[in-house]
Each structure stands twice: as C-alpha cells, then as structure tokens.
C-alpha cells in the first residue's frame, strides 16, 4: 500500500460516508440500556462517539457463536454442500482491541491448513475503527499492544476530533473507501495531526487497570507459578465459560450435527470453552484435564505461554476487558496476571 496522508471527515457527513460504501454496515447501535451492540443497521442509527465497547465483540461477524459449516441431504446418494455465510460488509466504529483481535484470528486461521471458512468471511469485511480517546473502566489494551490507538491493522482508523474525525488509511481497501467518500474528505491540517497525537498520548494516562503481561508470560513460561496459586485462583472459577465466549481471540469450537427432518441436516460449529469438564473428555471416559485446576492452568497457558506467542505472533490477550466484566469469580486476565506477578511478594510477606 502506498502511504497516505491523513484526512478529515466532518461528523455530520459520516452517515453519508458510510452510505457511499454501498455495502451492509455493522456498527455500534444503542441497546437502550446505556450500552451499544454491533448490529447491521442503517448508518443513521449508529452512535458516532462516546460509547464504551460492546459486551460481545464484533469479531462475531466473521466468527459467530454458532455457524453452519455444511448441509447434507441423504435422498439417495448423500451430499455435503458447504455453506457460505460470508458477507461483503463493513464494521464501523470497531475499537482498536477488536481490530487487533480480528488480525490475530486471521493469523490463527491462516496457519496451514488454512481455514477458508473464516478467512473468506474476514477478507470481505472492511474495518473502519474509531480510536479510543476515553478507555472504558475495564479496559487495559495499553498493556497488551491492543490500543487505545493503532498504528496499523485497520483499513480506516478514525479519531474523534470533536466536530470531525481524523481519517487515517491503513490498507488498499481503506484507500478505496476514501476514494468513494471523495469530496467529503479534506486533507488534515498540521493542527489536526498534532491533536491526534496529543489525544493518543492523553488516552494512555486514563487507564484504571494495569496488567503486567510480560511478567505473566515470563513466570508462566518458565513454570514459576506455584500449584497452590493455580488452585487458589481456580477455586474462584464457576466454569460458566463466560471468559471464553466474550474473548475476541478465543478460537476453540465444538462441532455437532443437527437434523432437519429424516434425510437433511447440517453440521455446525459452536464456540467452546476449555474450562468445561467435557471439553477434552473422550468417548472412552479418559480426560486429560479432569479437574478444574488443570483446565484453569490450560486457559492461561494458551493465553500467556511464550510458545504460543511464538506460534501466533502475539500473546493471547488484546486487553478489551470483557473477561473483567464477565467473570463472576474475579479471576479475569488482569487479576490472574497480577496474582502471578505479586506471588513472590505475598510469599515473602
């Protein structure tokens, strides 16, 4: 991609810009309870500023909770027909953490053998993100290289400058979106650019949660986390699966066949959670992780082990804070990382 100078888009022309894309657009829409959810909706319904990220990540568009892989019919010769659920669309107002998650998922599903089910869907989605001037109360992307502003990974990154957005192009597809917007976009002034840098700088100071990921990675990978600590943390897990289902970069799924009558049906995948006892249980009854502690360790091993980091290109957390909101037991990512980090201090005390 050729480098592009930043542009500006007046907020009052944002709906017009989105309409100019001429594709379905998912964006933050009010749930009516002071929160937003990402929904495919008319651009006029979308909230342009001041919203805290949704409870469910918009990575659900390329990777839904439940998805049909193929359908079968057994009238005579059985037939398996792949189900294409991909949609050319845009996600508007996606937050930096979720853009980071989106790119992580692309990397994950691209590992050989590449999975076209996800990759096809992801490749058809234009990401128009809005950088976070104001982090939410559970956010800690600043600790996870997941935001609050992005240097890459987006197609378009918008920054809220009050009456207008700074419009940064991050890909050829983003450039195409800018071309469609045409005269709505103006070259950004020096002041606009400086303002963006200052907002990015100021946002870094507004986080309430700190999670020392590198320390977590070091101690976990070198196996310096005591069993007693795992046991103490796991004791608080109620095995609800909430952390995995809200996590934008959890990838595990279960597969099941559903019958539609005698001779037709479908194979579906549903996002799964490694904290469930049945997750690794075999038909023979053998279960390599029969106890909650081993499953809890497994979850954080996947998120924090250096071996996974090497394989996946980054560690398994973007700092979106959704597990902080979801976990009843208070054993979310920053809580666990901080417990691992302060373990020695506690032992010495």
């Amino acid at each position, binding site marked *: 991609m050729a480098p592009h100078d930043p542009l500006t888009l007046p907020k009052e022309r944002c709906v017009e810009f989105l309409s100019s894309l001429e594709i379905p657009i998912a964006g933050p829409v009010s749930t009516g309870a002071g929160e937003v959810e990402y929904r495919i909706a008319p651009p006029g319904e979308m909230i342009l500023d001041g919203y805290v990220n949704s409870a469910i990540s918009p990575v659900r568009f390329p990777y839904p909770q439940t998805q049909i892989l193929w359908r*079968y019919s057994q009238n005579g010769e059985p037939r398996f027909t792949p189900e294409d659920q991909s949609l050319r669309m845009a996600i508007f107002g996606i937050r930096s953490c979720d853009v980071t998650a989106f790119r992580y998922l692309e990397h994950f599903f691209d590992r050989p053998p590449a999975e*076209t089910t996800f990759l096809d869907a992801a490749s058809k989605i234009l990401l128009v993100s809005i950088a976070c001037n104001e982090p939410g109360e559970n956010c800690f992307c600043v600790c996870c290289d997941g935001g609050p502003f992005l240097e890459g990974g987006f197609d378009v990154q918008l920054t809220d400058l009050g009456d207008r957005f700074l419009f940064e192009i991050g890909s050829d597809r983003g450039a195409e979106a800018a071309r469609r917007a045409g005269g709505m976009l103006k070259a950004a002034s020096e002041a606009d650019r400086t303002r963006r840098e200052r907002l990015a700088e100021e946002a870094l100071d507004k986080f309430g949660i700190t999670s020392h990921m590198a320390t977590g990675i070091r101690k976990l990978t070198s196996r310096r986390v005591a069993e007693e600590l795992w046991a103490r943390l796991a004791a608080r897990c109620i095995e609800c699966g909430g952390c995995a289902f809200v996590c934008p970069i959890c990838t595990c799924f279960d*597969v099941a066949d559903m019958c539609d009558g005698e001779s037709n049906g479908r194979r579906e995948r549903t996002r799964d959670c490694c904290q469930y006892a049945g997750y690794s249980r075999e038909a023979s009854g053998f279960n390599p992780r029969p106890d909650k502690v081993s499953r809890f360790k497994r979850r954080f*091993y996947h998120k924090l082990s250096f071996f996974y980091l*090497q394989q996946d290109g980054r560690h398994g957390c973007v700092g979106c804070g959704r597990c902080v909101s979801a976990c009843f037991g208070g054993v979310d990512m920053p809580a666990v990382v901080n417990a691992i980090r302060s373990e020695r201090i506690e032992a010495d005390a």
Partner: protein
Amino acid sequence: MATHLYVPDLVRIEKIEGETVDTKTFTLDWVEAEAHGRFRPEPGQFVEVSVAGVGEVPIGIASSYGRDGIFDITVRAAGKVTRALHATRPGDRIGIRGPLGNSFPYDIARGRTPIFVAGGIGLPPLRSLIHFMLARPEEYPKITILYGARTPADLVYKDELKRWEADPRIDLHVTVDIGAPGWTGNVGLVTELFKKISPDYAGVVSYVCGPPIMIHFVILTLLELGVPETMIISTLERHMKCGVGKCGHCAIGHKYVCTDGPVFSYVQIKELEWQCGENPT
C-alpha cells in the same frame, strides 16, 4: 485436502468384519475418482469419519494403502458416532476427510530392529506400518510385535494374528490382562512381554500405540531397557474434533495432536511436558 477443510468426501463401505463384541473393521473405497486421487496416506495418519446427522470421529487408518484406493478402519463402538458406524451395512456411504496428521517415521527403522507395542485398539494404527514394512522385506527383514488386550475376546485381527504367528519375519507375542477358558497364551500387562524377547535394545526402534496409561508405562519400560529416546516413537491420544488444528480440543501445550501429531518421539514428548507442565501420556 479438499478445498473446504470441513467437507468430507464419500466412501462406500465394501466390507464389514466383526473383530470383537464391540469392534468392527470397515473396508472402504472411494466413490469419486478425484477424491481417490487426492488421498495419499502415509502409515500412522488418520481420517475423520462422518456419519451425517450424527457426527464425526477421528480414526487411524488401519491398513497399507495402494493404488486400488481401498483402506481399512477398525472402530470400537464407544460413543454415539462409532455406534452409528457399527449400525451401517456394506454398500452404505459415509464421509471421510483426510489423510490427516503426521505419520510414523519408517526410514529410521532401516538397519534397526523394529518393535511394535500395541495395547487394545492401538494395534490398528500400527497395522498400517506393519503392512508397509512387510511389503518391503529388503528394507525391513524382521519385525517384533508385542500386543496386549484385556481378554482373549478383545483381540482384533484374530486370523491375521495366526498368519503373523506363522510368518518367519515376524516375532509375535500376545498377552491378555485376564485369561479365559481355552486361553493358553500369556496373561499379564503388555510390558511383561519384553521378558520374552532379548534384542540389542540400543539398536531397537519402537512404535507404541494404545491407551494413555499403557503408553506411559511402555515408554518407562523402553527407557529402562536402554532404547534411545529418539527411537521411542509413540502416538498420543487426545480428543480431536476438527482434525486440522483449529478447534483446540486436542492441544497439549502449544501442540495439536491432530496436526503436530498424532506421532511423537519420546524426545518431543519430554520437551512438551517440560514446556506445558502437563503429562502428555
């Protein structure tokens, strides 16, 4: 691989052979020439077997594979998909994805003494390599097979075992955990069978397949006998769903048994255990 990772190809069930009260061998042939052309399994690889409307299970390929395209899978009825498989009849069509996973390294066995150690339903995946070696007498002149099952009734490939018994290239020893009327053979764990053989263990390469607990103790025995760590080759067993390293269920540490395995050397097993702190066997 098919272009779509999860869509199976069709095979026709040519023959169904009852092995034990709960185990059958299915001989399968491809319905479409294109799928047949793509299918080039190596010994030790597995397939995902689909019964539409019921589900999919990973099953090791239990025979060598030639140009005729025909291959065997041996399946114990343990869950709902395997029970549905047992209810099929010759002529029925089922779905197959594969071949999947890595395979047994066989080049390292040239000039060494191959010892197969099988527990129960662990014999079928090893059979793919046994057939492979038997077809190449120049490279693999002699092999040893140690096979343990729960009871005499649980032994699979009973007719083939008789042929192997009579084959001068094969040193076969069979044992059962619990004897039965008419059984005059060995009784005891498969590890007991090492007392029946006395190879130069430094020159051995061993291929192990069976339930996790059996693998664990066979590896301990092989180490004790002096088999080099790089020459202990074992399958690892985990619950696989997708078979292509995506669904996460079969992970041990950061490895996926379905794509990084199912075949690992003891060196790899040990490294994995050190990395993740979980016992891979």
